[in-house]
């Protein structure tokens, strides 16, 4: 093997969690090497200026790695469809950047009900709040303060994205019902920041943003991290995290361009390869002393996978709503039904998020739920009645952390470097089915209250008709209270290997009923702050301290 590189901290994965950690550590002068299996995405790689912009989303910008089939993607087998993206920025390269925070109750779901595998987080909302604020300021969040349904949040970098006619229409519906609603926070610039332009409401997010208005991690954290001197190696696919005498020593990676293997040695290793990639890598890292994979002596690595439970409900109205304008994540959300009310027949709750609709081809091809314009004689009138008159309400439910929903290795399918593909099994719990069915009815009520519904369809892509797609993949190496109930302690330090940290969405203990990235990045920033201030303690630890014994910040 070629000579190795030595560094203070090795970060694996340059996505949401890995980018945040690399930047924060390097701010303090800590030497960081980051290994990322994908490459950079260039501003010209986005389809926004081409006539085939809507079609491109089904090719290079497909949400599914198995459909994109890029050489840097790894295939995923199993019964569901996890959505990920590979490259500097990770899955944020094509996320929508809806930016809600978890609520205080989300950190205490074990206390509230403890159904299935639910446990309390080892930290509270209040402990995480300062890190939410740091992260928001780093990346530039658009926000309207004053939501009475959530703890106060600091001013955003700019005002909330505009709601357009869709926002006004659906806001009026919620208003009539007296239900809570509020303009959504988005990690999308409404004011220029650094070299990133403010959003111009072009209406085509979820294929990245060529103006860099969306805070994907490649444009939010990475430029500053590189200026700090982080050694970011792209096309570097980690094959194994190495360990000796109970401590991580670094990792071996395959250079996807040359095919050669290299070793990086480090005092601390941070894994941030996302909720599929992280358990996959830990399981691939089975070695002497760690026969079932690294950090997996209790068998919990890969378990308690969460996706959120989903249903999309498309509504068409008798008036123009122009949903092709404005950024694509939720325009607004209602959290009227967020808290558990067991009289409904289920625990947990959901957000109703209102979304927009893309362009003419998408409208003709059935918008989100396959309500296809017929071909032939009926085409023209269907299109003319549906285009630009649409609003989407999606039910985004908190799914229970089910132990048997999990990531394992598929011995039969390999990625382009010959490494085993992850196999994913996910089934909705009965609780989550009930929740989604009930939520769909509330979506209908909101649209009816807004008035003038001429057509509606609901998706079979999530919720009650099958396993939901994995937009929000969480929980496979969760943080918890004891080595029996989790993979890491409250500082994201794995119970088995004290100098091995996990700082991506896999560390989330419960999934809440909101999009996860603001929370996972806040958690990552908090872990980085701990590593920054405490790396001498960590260097001398031979066992991972309990939550009570771990040093404070």
């Amino acid at each position: 093997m070629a000579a190795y590189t030595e560094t203070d901290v090795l970060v694996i994965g340059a996505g949401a969690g890995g980018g945040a950690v690399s930047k924060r550590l390097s701010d303090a002068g800590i030497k960081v090497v980051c290994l990322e299996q994908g490459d950079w995405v260039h501003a010209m790689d986005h389809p926004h200026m081409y006539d085939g912009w809507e079609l491109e989303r089904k090719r290079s910008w497909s949400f599914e790695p198995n459909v994109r089939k890029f050489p840097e993607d790894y295939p995923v087998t199993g019964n569901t469809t996890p959505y990920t993206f590979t490259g500097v920025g990770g899955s944020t390269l094509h996320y929508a950047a809806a930016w809600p925070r978890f609520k205080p109750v989300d950190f205490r779901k074990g206390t509230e009900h403890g159904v299935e595998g639910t446990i309390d987080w080892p930290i509270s909302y209040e402990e995480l709040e300062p890190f939410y604020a740091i992260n928001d300021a780093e990346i530039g969040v658009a926000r309207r303060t004053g939501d009475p349904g959530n703890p106060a949040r600091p001013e955003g970098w700019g005002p909330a994205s505009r709601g357009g006619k869709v926002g006004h229409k659906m806001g009026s519906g919620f208003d009539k019902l007296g239900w809570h609603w509020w303009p959504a926070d988005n990690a999308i610039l409404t004011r220029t920041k650094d070299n990133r332009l403010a959003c111009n409401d072009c209406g085509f997010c979820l294929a990245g943003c060529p103006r860099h208005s969306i805070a994907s991690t490649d444009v939010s954290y990475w430029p500053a991290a590189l200026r700090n001197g982080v050694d970011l190696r792209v096309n570097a696919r980690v094959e194994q995290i190495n360990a000796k005498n109970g401590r991580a020593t670094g990792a071996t990676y395959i250079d996807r361009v040359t095919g050669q293997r290299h070793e990086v040695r480090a005092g601390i290793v941070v894994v941030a390869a996302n909720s599929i990639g992280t358990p996959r890598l830990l399981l691939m890292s089975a070695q002497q002393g760690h026969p079932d994979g690294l950090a997996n002596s209790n068998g919990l690595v890969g378990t308690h996978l969460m996706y959120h439970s989903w249903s999309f409900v498309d509504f068409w109205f008798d008036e123009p709503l122009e949903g092709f304008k404005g950024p694509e994540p939720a325009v607004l959300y209602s959290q009227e039904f967020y808290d558990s009310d067991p009289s409904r027949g289920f625990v947990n709750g959901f957000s109703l998020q209102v979304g927009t609709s893309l362009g003419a081809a998408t409208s003709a091809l059935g918008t989100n739920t396959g309500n296809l314009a017929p071909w032939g004689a009926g085409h023209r009138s269907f299109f003319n009645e549906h285009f630009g008159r649409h609003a989407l309400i999606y039910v985004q439910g908190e799914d229970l952390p089910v132990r048997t929903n999990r990531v394992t290795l598929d011995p039969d399918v390999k990625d382009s470097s010959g490494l085993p593909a992850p196999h994913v099994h996910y089934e909705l719990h009965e609780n989550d089915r009930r929740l989604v069915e009930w939520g769909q009815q509330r979506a209908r009520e909101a649209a009816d209250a807004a008035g003038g519904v001429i057509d509606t369809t609901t998706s079979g892509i999530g919720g009650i008709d099958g396993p939901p797609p994995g937009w929000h993949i969480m929980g496979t190496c969760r943080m918890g209270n004891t080595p029996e109930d989790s993979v890491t302690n409250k500082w994201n330090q794995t119970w088995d290997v004290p100098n091995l940290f996990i700082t991506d969405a896999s560390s989330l203990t419960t999934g809440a009923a909101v999009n996860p990235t603001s929370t996972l990045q806040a958690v990552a920033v908090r872990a980085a702050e701990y590593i920054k201030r405490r790396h001498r303690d960590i260097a001398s630890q031979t066992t991972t301290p309990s939550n009570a014994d771990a040093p404070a910040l």
Partner: protein
Amino acid sequence: MTDLSVTPRDTKPPLGGWLPGIRLTETQAAVLNAAADELIPGGDGFPPPSEVDVISFIGRYVTPSGLEPRWFPFLGEDDFRARLDGLGQEFADATPVQRVTVLEGLERDEQEFFTRLRDVVYHAYYSRPEVIRAINRLPAGRDYRNSPQPYGYSDVMDDWDDELLSRVRGTYIRTEEVRRVAIPADLPMCSARQAREAGEN
């Protein structure tokens, strides 16, 4: 010299399709235009597809001969040409009623190919500047533009209604207020337990 390119021509779909795009024979073009005209008939101020050159757009997205059609719309050049030839001049010359009958047969018997053809025709048609101009005559589409960028829509975008927002009421459970709730009696507590009871492993 070592080729350091990690994205050779056939490992990723090129943005905008493959240039210069396949060139159909005269008959193939006539057949494709005829099929497109039946899928999306013109009218109500909308031109028929054959008048707005959908075939150039489609030509870029048909995977050239020699490469595997791995990406949407999953149409490979050789097969695509053969299918158009199969329909032949006879289809192009047929009456609209006859063409519709043929397309209905295709939809029934060759579902996969029909869906691919329909989808790419829809995409092609609704990307054409003349069609966008027709959409601009619909009340809901008056501001609609050819592509999202470079202009965006900030100049024609409505903002929030402050009056409406001033009425919003809401609440949340504070950390110190979180209490145990009753669990619905008929809710299975643990799917693992359920599976065991059902005799599964």
